[in-house]
């Protein structure tokens, strides 16, 4: 039974990937209706995860998996506790609505199938990211979400802005991912485990390790880039180049929360240290404030939401690192609330854009009558984001204030930050969810009317959940908030906050937030103008810095390339042979490994002496040759003589090959020489010739010493005996050399012939390029009178 359930979970976790494979074909068959069908994949996964709710709420964990690389203690396994289950439910639940929404939003787009495939691929990666037990598996899926994000941001790849944004997101999150990998390797080396489930419950002295700070910084680099924390935030607003379903799903509800997930996951092992409690709230706080301020200056609905997403992520990081159980509860509530209302608001913004043709807030108004359902969803979501009573956002905000307002100066400071941030987000919430719908009707590029069900179903359901979750807060806490908070703090936590306001400091802060927020909303245009002026005075931000970094990198690699690839054959050859001579000569000299003087053989046969003499004559002929062609042919004399010597010493195969190689190399060298169009004679100055001679002699000497040394060592007969004994019996061949080539070491040969083939291709390409250039150059020369 348990095995069956495990297998079922495994299949369910792969459902999104299956959907991704089917998406293009289904879209071709069924058109826009395919999205409704494809939404079944995440919907089924969602239902499957719901069956775990009771078990997890009772404090148990669900695990399963298979061995992957047992020798490295790596397993392909999953691990569901309150934290990962909540994330899994958000991913599959919102994912279902997003797939449906995409069907409506991308209706009639020629690449709709590809789009749905990318969305589902991302969904699978994100799902595996949060359920992975092995943190190396987590890393693989972490990077896969970066790649799918790249594909989705750059979906509209014909626009340069989209391509740049996609590349930027990939570079920033991918670079952070590499830091994360280094951090995970540290973690592995310090603790000796790769499973998160073991890590969390281990008393392993990680915090006392001398490498704790390095590990923390590397992990934070990964989490901060992924979750768009200041100063790595700039990729997130640019990512709004993606179609709106992507912004709603990846860049607000799920992917950007991967960093927060990681921090929450590692909180029990790495948290509660001074470094953790300084770095996280510090960067989180800066991100919160800068995000909200940047959001105020925007007029584009999606950009306003993007910057508030950045601010919300900052708030989550700040709460996670604050170091109190209440703060964790607040983070949990806010994370869930944010996924619901921000997902809904993005979809509302997308629907408005889709139906009116613009998403500039100053050019929208009075859509209430034309789009009543979208308006209702937007307003409900804005209530939750603004934190009005009766909504889930209110619970989160109350808990935030209850957690932060502890009385000491640090708490007062962060409470202040939270109040300012929340107030500004309150204003943005209504600027997106309310402002386009009320007031006088403004002319829009398209005649606005309510979109199809696919476009309003998602936002309505998410916005309604924000209300229902608060009304039935008991249930929500029992099954979601409490288990998740318990998993983050690694102790039993019961979240108790309800939607009934309690008189006290948190409520007072809430009221201040709302008044301040309403004020900003009322004077939004003034605030925007102010922010635009302030930001202009601040000068260019990290977005511009990214461009400088990239172009600087390209310039630097250009300089390096020009240094190591000067393009003159003489320099390459000289450098290669100098290095070769050094490699051969320096180690024996330094380590005193020079061979002894070879003994003169007692008896040399006449034919052996004759061929040695021929080889020598060949060499002398090379040196004294009047032109290059003669030198090449003379080199052949020496080669043939050596081949005959091989034959005399009983190596017919070797000799045979040597004959052929010599012949062909003379032919090919002669052809190359004629093509290079060198002058037939050698015109090197004497100094140059001397230098070349020294290098050549040094190489020759080095090889001679190496061979003498090798021959000195006692010969080990083990392999010879093995091949002689088994060549005939196992491999049915009498020619040991050939049997080794094609059978005993056949895989080597396969690699070698692949190299021969690639070399052939490379030479072919070089000759063609060279020929083309020369022809072009001669044409130019010929054009002159």
């Amino acid at each position, binding site marked *: 039974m348990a095995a069956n359930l495990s297998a079922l979970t495994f299949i369910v976790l792969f459902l999104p990937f299956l959907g991704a494979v089917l998406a293009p074909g289904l879209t071709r068959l069924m058109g826009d209706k395919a999205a409704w069908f494809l939404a079944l994949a995440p919907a089924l996964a969602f239902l499957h995860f719901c069956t775990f709710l009771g078990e997890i709420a009772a404090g148990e964990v669900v695990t399963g998996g298979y061995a992957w690389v047992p020798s490295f203690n790596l397993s392909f396994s999953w691990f569901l506790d309150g934290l990962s289950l909540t994330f899994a439910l958000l991913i599959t639940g919102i994912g279902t609505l997003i797939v449906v929404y995409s069907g409506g939003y991308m209706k009639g787009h020629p690449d709709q199938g590809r789009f749905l495939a990318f969305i589902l691929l991302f969904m699978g990666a994100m799902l595996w990211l949060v359920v992975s037990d092995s943190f190396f598996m987590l890393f693989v899926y972490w990077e896969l979400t970066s790649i799918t994000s790249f594909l989705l941001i750059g979906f509209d790849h014909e626009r340069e802005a989209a391509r740049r944004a996609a590349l930027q997101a990939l570079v920033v999150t991918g670079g952070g991912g590499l830091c994360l990998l280094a951090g995970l390797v540290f973690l592995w080396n310090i603790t000796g485990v790769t499973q998160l489930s073991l890590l969390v419950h281990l008393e392993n002295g990680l915090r006392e390790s001398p490498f704790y700070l390095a590990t923390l910084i590397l992990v934070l680099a990964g989490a901060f880039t992924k979750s768009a924390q200041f100063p790595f935030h700039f990729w997130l607003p640019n990512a709004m180049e993606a179609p709106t379903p992507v912004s709603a799903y990846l860049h607000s509800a799920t992917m950007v929360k991967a960093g927060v997930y990681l921090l929450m996951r590692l909180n029990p092992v790495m948290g509660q240290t001074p470094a953790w409690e300084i770095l996280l709230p510090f960067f989180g706080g800066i991100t919160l404030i800068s995000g909200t301020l940047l959001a105020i200056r925007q007029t584009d609905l999606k950009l306003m939401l993007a910057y508030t997403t950045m601010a919300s992520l900052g708030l989550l990081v700040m709460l996670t690192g604050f170091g109190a159980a209440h703060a964790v509860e607040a983070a949990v509530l806010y994370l869930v609330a944010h996924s619901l209302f921000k997902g809904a608001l993005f979809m509302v913004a997308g629907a408005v854009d889709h139906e009116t043709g613009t998403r500039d807030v100053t050019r929208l108004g009075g859509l209430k009558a034309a789009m009543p359902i979208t308006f209702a969803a937007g307003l409900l979501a804005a209530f939750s984001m603004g934190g009005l009573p009766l909504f889930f956002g209110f619970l989160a905000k109350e808990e935030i204030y209850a957690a932060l307002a502890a009385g000491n100066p640090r708490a007062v400071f962060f409470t202040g930050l939270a109040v300012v941030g929340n107030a500004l987000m309150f204003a943005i919430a209504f600027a997106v969810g309310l402002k386009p719908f009320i007031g006088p009707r403004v002319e829009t590029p398209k005649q606005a009317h309510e979109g199809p069900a696919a476009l309003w179903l998602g936002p309505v359901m998410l916005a309604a959940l924000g209300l229902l979750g608060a009304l039935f807060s008991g249930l929500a806490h029992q099954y979601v908030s409490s288990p998740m908070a318990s998993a983050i703090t690694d102790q039993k936590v019961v979240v108790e906050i309800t939607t009934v306001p309690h008189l006290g400091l948190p409520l007072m802060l809430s009221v201040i937030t709302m008044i301040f927020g309403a004020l900003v909303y009322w004077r939004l245009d003034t605030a925007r103008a102010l922010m635009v002026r302030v930001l202009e005075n601040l000068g260019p931000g990290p977005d511009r810095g990214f461009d400088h970094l990239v172009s600087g990198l390209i310039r630097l690699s250009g300089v390096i390339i020009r240094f190591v690839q000067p393009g003159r054959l003489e320099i390459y050859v000289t450098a290669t042979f100098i290095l070769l001579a050094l490699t051969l000569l320096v180690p024996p000299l330094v380590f005193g490994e020079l061979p002894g003087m070879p003994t003169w053989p007692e008896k040399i046969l006449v034919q052996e002496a004759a061929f040695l003499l021929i080889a020598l004559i060949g060499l002398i002929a090379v040196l004294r040759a009047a032109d290059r062609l003669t030198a090449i042919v003379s080199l052949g004399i020496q080669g043939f003589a050596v081949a005959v010597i091989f034959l005399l010493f009983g190596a017919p195969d070797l000799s045979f090959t040597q004959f052929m190689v010599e012949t062909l190399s003379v032919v090919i060298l002669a052809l190359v020489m004629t093509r290079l169009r060198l002058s037939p004679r050698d015109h090197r100055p004497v100094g140059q010739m001397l230098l070349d001679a020294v290098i050549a002699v040094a190489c020759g000497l080095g090889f001679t010493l190496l061979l003498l040394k090798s021959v000195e060592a006692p010969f080990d007969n083990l392999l010879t005996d093995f091949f002689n004994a088994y060549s005939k019996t196992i491999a049915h061949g009498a020619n040991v050399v050939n049997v080794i080539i094609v059978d005993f070491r056949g895989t080597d040969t396969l690699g070698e*012939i692949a190299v021969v083939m690639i070399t052939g291709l490379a030479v072919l390409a070089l000759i063609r390029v060279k020929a083309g250039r020369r022809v072009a150059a001669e044409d130019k020369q010929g054009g002159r009178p």
Partner: protein
Amino acid sequence: MNTLILRTVAPVLTALMLLFSVFVLLRGHNEPGGGFIGGLIAASALAIYGIAFGVSAVRRAIRFHPMAIAGAGLLLAALSGLISIFAGVPFMTGLWIYPEILGVEVPVATVMSFDIGVYLVVVGAITSIALALEQEETEPAEAIGEQPLVRVKRPRKPAHKPKERG
């Protein structure tokens, strides 16, 4: 190198060398020889033919692009290694069968097809280099159906003449 002697001898020599290369390839398992040497001999044979009659004649004679021959060889060698996986033994294990052809028992092995693959790769790769190098010396690229990178529109120039300057 358009001597009458070479032109007369070259076809015979090439045919003999090609035949010999196949002989060397097949005997390689028990006597000196094998795919690598056989391939080198065949490549030399084609080089001689090319020197005597020009590149286009060689290309016509071998019908396929030499690189395609090399590619086919690499594929054949890799597949020969793969067959053993379906027989349930590790990659590259030699498999032998002994069918009787005309009453003679002929051993056939994946090792042999592997060696033929080696032969084809060596012939293809080296011939393609040699032909590409010879090409411009004898005739422009278009004449023999090879796509040049730049269209050649110029009077033929002597191969060895050093560039005139000024």
